[in-house]
């Protein structure tokens, strides 16, 4: 018998395979979303969680380049801070528990992405005009969000090191922050607008537009 699973791939080939798999998952999720009833925010969030978890694991070979920060930012804009925090926690815990390693840092990752989601929610008026996402502004905020997330996660070293280590640790990680920021800008440029359109189809009616009383017959 041949051992068909003994093929060894180079790191580049593995990355190419992972990108191909992620593209397949994205296509399947895109098709799946089109069959969802509109106004299904939790079903939509579930699909986004699957996308976030898959992308985080499959793009792990790339240094700090993955779309989760962009994802929670856009979810914060359309769905609000609390749902973005829920999504952040699910993605951080699940991807770490399945593949990347779970530990105290998971909490800091969830907090970091939760903070990014809250930022998106609080800047929603600035980052959206009506139904349209302001992609240029969002790119700028996503780059800043990379530093917000990375520096929040960096605080986890205080569990095991003195505060004097924070500055050298942050200095040492600045190149990885730049990878994250540049990656976020690219993900925003290519994915944020279609993602925003998909999410918008499942957003509930904003409270400001909802009627407070049922009209009598």
């Amino acid at each position, binding site marked *: 018998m041949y051992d068909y699973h003994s093929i060894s791939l180079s790191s580049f080939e593995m990355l190419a395979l992972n990108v191909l798999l992620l593209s397949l998952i994205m296509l399947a999720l895109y098709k799946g979303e089109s069959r969802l009833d509109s106004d299904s925010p939790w079903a939509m969030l579930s699909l986004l969680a699957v996308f976030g978890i898959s992308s985080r694991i499959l793009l792990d070979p790339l240094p700090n380049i993955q779309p989760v920060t962009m994802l929670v930012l856009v979810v914060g804009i359309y769905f609000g801070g609390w749902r973005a925090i829920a999504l952040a926690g699910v993605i951080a815990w699940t991807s770490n528990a399945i593949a990347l390693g779970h530990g105290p840092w998971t909490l800091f990752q969830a907090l970091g992405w939760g903070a990014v989601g809250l930022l998106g929610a609080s800047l929603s008026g600035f980052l959206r005009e009506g139904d349209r996402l302001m992609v240029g502004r969002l790119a700028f905020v996503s780059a800043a969000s990379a530093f917000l997330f990375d520096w929040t996660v960096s605080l986890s070293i205080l569990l095991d090191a003195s*505060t004097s280590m924070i*500055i050298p640790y942050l200095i040492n990680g600045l190149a990885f922050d730049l990878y994250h*920021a540049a990656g976020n800008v690219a993900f925003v440029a290519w994915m944020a607008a279609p993602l925003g359109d998909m999410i918008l189809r499942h957003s509930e009616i904003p409270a400001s537009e909802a009627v407070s009383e049922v009209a009598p017959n």
Partner: protein
Amino acid sequence: MSDNLKPGSLLLLFAVIILAPIIQDRLSEEAVKYVQDNASAHNGMPNEWDGKQVYCVLFPEYFSHSEYSSGVTMIGPSGSPLGVNDQYNGTGACVGGLVGFSSGMELMLNATEIAGGSLSVDYDVGEWGPYVHTIGGLNADNITGDFNWAWWSLEHNGAVSMVGIGDLVMSEGDVIIWRISTS
């Protein structure tokens, strides 16, 4: 905007991927230097001060402080002397085990208060900020010898500070030392 952003974002990502390893090497060197400076600045001080802020005043050989004339007295954050290091290069006192000070001026004034007045500081505020001329009763202008000028020189983590005490930004674990320099 978004039409330009797509190719622009790929160019940015490509540039970062190319340049980041070079940036990373430089940053790693800086981080290592920072840690080494910070750690070596604590040499000769109590171990419990590692990672905490320290303020020292070292007096010249012929103008030693009446209270700290032998070795360097280590004073804890409560003001209690922890001991004297006779091997330290100079005589004087250090107040250490401090945390949370973000400015050099703030650290100096608090450490001075902890030392109970024996390291009292007099300074003039000029165009360039506070200029310290007297510490522990020793006015640098009164120091005489085979030199033209003497002044209180500020060291930050083992190196001469590039800024005055009024502009010095402190991090956790930083050590500042005043000592007399001459020219």
